[in-house]
């Protein structure tokens, strides 16, 4: 599950900050933290030859929060052009945080340091109090320095990346694994059925580092607190789930110009130019 913001419950308690439940609360909290002299957000999109992908997750999360799920689907299949004003709106909304010198980049430097900070170490300033908020997927639970307690009452934990208008549902962005069958035989189907069953979900979840939206999955079988929260959100009937957009787009865009465009965008290029560049690279 990707729609998470990591924070330090300890620091929040000390400073009297509360977990925001709407976008406006999130911005208000960021302003409050910025006023106290700490840069509220830290981010990093460096990832070797995949540099840029963490920023595409930001945009996807904001697309889901500023647009309807239908528009999101059209966007990933090029029904809505990449330089459409709707996409620009999402980008600018993300830019409200990512390109705001008052907000970023806690523990690393200015806005441009996001481009060269690796995604693995991007959230670590939270543990030293140099940064308060870091948007990253649930897998980040395993990226913290050794000895960091990941729990609701621990050193770090995550809260749901709030919706702009919670009345319109609970948009959730995520990735996932697929089971593809290469033969239509009874035993293959049996395995598929088993993998889709609550029985499998429960026994797999016990091993850890795994979540599922399977409704038969018992929360008690999920050991990791962040995974527990993920399952809770995924099983919530109000949740609107969408798959990682850049993974759905053609590789030339989703693993190419979208990543590169995000790097340029962080590095100072304006929204319109970046979106125009990505749009023109969409395979014809």
């Amino acid at each position: 599950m990707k729609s998470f913001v990591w924070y330090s419950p300890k620091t929040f308690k000390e400073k009297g900050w509360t977990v925001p439940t709407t976008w406006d609360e999130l911005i208000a909290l960021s302003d409050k933290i910025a006023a106290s002299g700490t840069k509220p957000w830290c981010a990093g999109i460096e990832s070797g030859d995949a540099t840029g992908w963490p920023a595409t997750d930001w945009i996807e999360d904001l697309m889901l929060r500023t647009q309807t799920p239908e528009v999101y689907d059209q966007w990933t299949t090029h029904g809505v052009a990449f330089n459409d004003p709707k996409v620009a709106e999402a980008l600018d909304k993300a830019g409200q945080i990512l390109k705001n010198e008052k907000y970023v980049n806690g523990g690393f430097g200015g806005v441009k340091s996001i481009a060269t900070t690796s995604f693995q170490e991007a959230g670590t300033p939270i543990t030293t109090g140099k940064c308060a908020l870091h948007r990253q997927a649930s897998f980040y639970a395993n990226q913290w320095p050794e000895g960091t307690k990941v729990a609701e009452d621990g050193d770090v934990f995550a809260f749901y990346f709030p919706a702009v208008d919670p009345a319109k549902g609970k948009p959730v962005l995520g990735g996932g694994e697929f089971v593809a069958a290469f033969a239509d035989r009874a035993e293959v189907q049996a395995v598929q059925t088993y993998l889709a069953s609550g029985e499998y979900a429960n026994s797999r979840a016990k091993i850890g580092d795994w979540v599922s939206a399977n409704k038969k999955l018992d929360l008690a079988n999920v050991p990791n607190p962040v995974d527990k929260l993920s399952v809770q959100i995924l099983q919530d009937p109000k949740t609107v789930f969408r798959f990682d957009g850049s993974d759905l787009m053609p590789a030339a865009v989703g693993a190419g110009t979208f990543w590169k465009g995000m790097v340029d965008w962080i590095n100072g290029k304006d929204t319109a130019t970046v979106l125009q560049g990505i749009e023109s690279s969409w395979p014809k």
Partner: protein
Amino acid sequence: MEFDFAAEQPKLLMLMYGLIAFVAVVGGLLLLLDAVPAWFARRREAQLVAASASGAPLPRRPKPREGMFAFFFLLPAVLLLLVGLVVPAIRTMLLSFMDGSSVDWVGFRNYTWMFSDDSIVRVLINTLVWVLLVPLITTAFGLLYAVLVDRARFESVAKSLIFMPMAISFVGAAIIWKFVYAFRGDGQEQIGLLNQIVVSLGGEPKQWLLDPPLNTLLLIVIMIWIQAGFAMVVLSAAIKAIPADIVEAARLDGVSPWQMFWQITMPSIRPALIVVVVTLSIATLKVFDIVRTATNGNYDTSVIANEMYNQAFRYGENGQGSALAVFLFVLVVPIVIYQIRNLRQQREG
């Protein structure tokens, strides 16, 4: 850990098959190379004996048979070249006229794309900068160093210091230099050498690899660092090979060190100089690892080889990737031709 023969049996079996296959193929080839000429020799002997016995004039060695010999010796090399070079080259050329999934013919679209897309034009310009600067600076540096340390007291130590980076892979070197250029915000502890120097001189830390055109120049430094040793060693050997009598005659005539360098050293090592520049030019045109490791071509630092790889193997745009590959090939060809002509002239002269 104990070595369990039973558990490793499948691997050992494969290893044995491999060994047997190797012995069979190589042994067979050696046998062939021994048996075929021997058979021809025996036949010719028999003919000679028969001819001398009958008193007829000795038969002339027929020409085509020599061609056969040559054919047998060239066969393995030709086969490998065909499979590994000629066929892929032709296929790449064909692919460069097809679309991303290599289904439809698109004419010159991939080539017009290459010269009209701003980001690709940038890539071509970057490659040009690389190929102009790297051979020139590297050769100049290597030459200067070779001349300066020639017959100095610690020559071998000084030379090995410059030569050592040659032993490091391009990827390793790029990672090392990535640390040199590393950035931490103002007020943080710097982990990059360059920024630490800047900070201790009272400056502000900088994100070195972020801003063009400086970042491309900083990447070029990595290549120079690796290759300077190669230039230095080859040129140093050439300098040592200058006949002592020429040097002595020049000394007796009372040349200045400056004259010595330009009138004696330079003309004498010209062939070695050309080899170094040509080798470096080709290596630079193909540079890939450094750019890929240090920036992956972000921040306007990409070069042809990196972009070619991204297009063909990351974005699934086989046509555009192939077009870039063909263009790279076209750029390398004149250099190779020049080198071959040079070698021929030397042999004749």
